[in-house]
């Protein structure tokens, strides 16, 4: 009997090993030709230096830019690796790592945005005695105790995308590479308000309640709407970052607020769900819809004019910049405590720049 049990378990272990052999590259391959390949064009178009060097790194024996960083072991902890935008980030990070000759590992929780798992991942970095940690926290404050541990272990931290809460003053990071959600939210909301002529009823579609992203974006948008006396925030609903749910929620909202003008959505998924609902209700022209992230399908929607605005977060560049910052630091260079990754609202005007064909 026990033999059976043993065999089966071993079998699984083997499965695990086979698994772990591939995934390191697998997704990379399935990704490379897809999103990021195109994404790399984006930075080329916008800010030259970073990405134009990416191809350069391809040819052998090129001089590494930051000798001190060469061969150093780094880990980048993201919020999620099941979602295209974060896969872009991974590519950006890996590209930079290759360019600067670093040994980078990109990881994320199984359940996206799970703080506890991120803590475990951070502790893993300590266990593996990495040279540097690039941290994109799912929960600004929840991660603090873990980061304190990292500080204690004298592993430098580069903060990426979402701020690590330093109010307690007990944690510190070398720099904060940010295309931060508050800014995204503000950009998007401002654009929406402009399109709506600074007046009308607005609603916000949130992600799962309690999520950090949701909170940052939603608060940013609310702040913007408050600024304009004629903008009335009539409702906030949770659509679980899910297109189908947003579809239903929007239908319901339209029933409650027939002359809705603005839908601010905390990600493109929900925005597109809202768009479908508006199509059904035939109110596409009445309502302006804004999302966040700049997914290809959202960009396509903007091109078609069904959706008005999104904010292209350029996760590729964020990650790339973060790794470069890490390299700089390991090379003993001084870092400013904040590195801004340029963000811009994507509108029909500039959508072609981001849209891949």
């Amino acid at each position, binding site marked *: 009997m026990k033999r059976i049990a043993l065999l089966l378990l071993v079998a699984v272990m083997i499965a*695990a090993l086979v698994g772990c052999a591939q*995934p390191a590259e697998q997704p990379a391959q399935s990704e490379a030709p897809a999103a990021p390949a195109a994404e790399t064009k984006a930075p080329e178009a916008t800010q030259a230096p970073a990405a134009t060097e990416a191809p350069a790194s391809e040819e052998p024996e090129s001089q590494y830019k930051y000798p001190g960083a060469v061969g150093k072991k780094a880990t980048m902890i993201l919020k999620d690796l*099941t979602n295209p935008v974060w896969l872009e980030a991974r590519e950006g990070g890996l590209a930079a790592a290759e360019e600067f000759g670093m040994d980078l590992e990109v990881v994320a929780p199984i359940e996206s945005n799970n703080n506890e798992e991120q*803590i475990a991942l951070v502790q893993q970095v300590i266990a593996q005695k990495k040279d540097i940690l690039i941290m994109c926290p799912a929960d600004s*404050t929840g991660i603090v*105790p873990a980061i304190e*541990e990292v500080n204690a272990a004298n592993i430098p931290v580069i903060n990426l995308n979402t701020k690590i809460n330093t109010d307690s003053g007990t944690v510190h990071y070398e720099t904060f590479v940010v295309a931060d959600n508050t800014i995204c939210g503000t950009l998007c909301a401002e654009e929406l308000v402009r399109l709506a002529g600074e007046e009308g009823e607005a609603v916000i579609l949130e992600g799962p*309640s309690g999520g950090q992203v*949701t*909170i940052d974006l939603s608060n940013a948008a609310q702040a913007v709407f408050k600024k304009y006396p004629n903008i009335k925030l009539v409702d906030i609903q949770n659509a679980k970052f899910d297109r189908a749910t947003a579809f239903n929620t929007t239908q319901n909202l339209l029933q409650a607020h027939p002359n809705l003008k603005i839908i601010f959505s905390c990600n493109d998924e929900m925005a597109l769900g809202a768009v479908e609902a508006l199509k059904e209700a035939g109110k596409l022209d009445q309502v302006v819809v804004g999302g966040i992230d700049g997914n290809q399908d959202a960009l396509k929607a903007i091109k078609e004019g069904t959706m008005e605005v999104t904010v292209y977060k350029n996760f590729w560049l964020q990650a790339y910049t973060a790794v470069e910052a890490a390299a700089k630091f390991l090379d003993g260079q001084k870092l400013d405590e904040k590195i801004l990754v340029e963000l811009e609202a994507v509108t029909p005007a500039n959508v072609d720049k981001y849209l891949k064909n």
Partner: protein
Amino acid sequence: MKQKKLNFQNREKLGLVIGIVVLFIIMSILAEGFFSWYNIHNLLRDSSILLVVATGMTLVILLGKIDMSAGSVMSLTAIVTTILLANGAHVVVALLAGLASGALIGLLNGYLVGIQKLDHFVTTFATMSLAKGLALVICDGDIINTGNNDFKAIGASTSVFLGLHVHIWIVAAIFAVMLFVLTKTKFGYRVYSIGGSEQAAMLAGISTRGTYILSFLISGLTASVGGILLASKANNGNATIGDGFEFSAIATVIIGGTPFDGGRGGLVGTLIGAILISLLKNGLRFLNITPSLQYVIIGLVILVVIITDVIINERRKLEELRRVEQ
């Protein structure tokens, strides 16, 4: 007779233990930094939270019931505790309040199942939504920072006592007590009896109500403890903290060899199950397997282990039947 009996119980566990050992060895070889006290200690710490929730769950499953509300109770407790701390309550008060909230849901479950005789799944499924909902309403969908250092101290990785983290000690204590209660006390015997055959228990003059209520109460409390430990780790409260945790806890118990039909199994198995699952997750992380693939592997392991367990039990039944003839 006695010999044989022990054999069977061992057999059920043996496969798992071997699995754990094999897994551990493989990981130690393959994953750099896995085989270090620091990591093993963290592993134990992670498993302790799963274990404490699974401990209460074991009781309920031994009764032939399920507690779907465990995960939501964790969230609720976390929120209640942290929001009180955030508003400057003393840490003890906050903790007690947190536990109370869990106890309350537990009692509600116990009342509806034990006295109203509602179906356990339906009941706890409902209280799952209820507790989660309350948590969301209380925290207004926000993350709550305690800014309280006493509370933080519970979770801080520096708070180590005799080489082991406080979490581990707390859970170890709870586990030990529950193990004693389950194997040595009247209450424990009742749980097994009712799980084995409610009718037989009732005809023996055992009041099932009390046992149901107490068991669900305990399950609620252990879930609360889990929620508190989780929150203390992050030193903040989040209404999504326990999402899906009930499933992990149930899986742990089942993998540990306590089947849904109740009256059979026990806490030792649950302990093994908790370690296996934590070890698996920790190991997969160290091997840097993409999350998507981790899903697949975890799913496989659950199925494989359960199937093995089922086969073993089938065989055991057969052998017992055969033995009747001798």
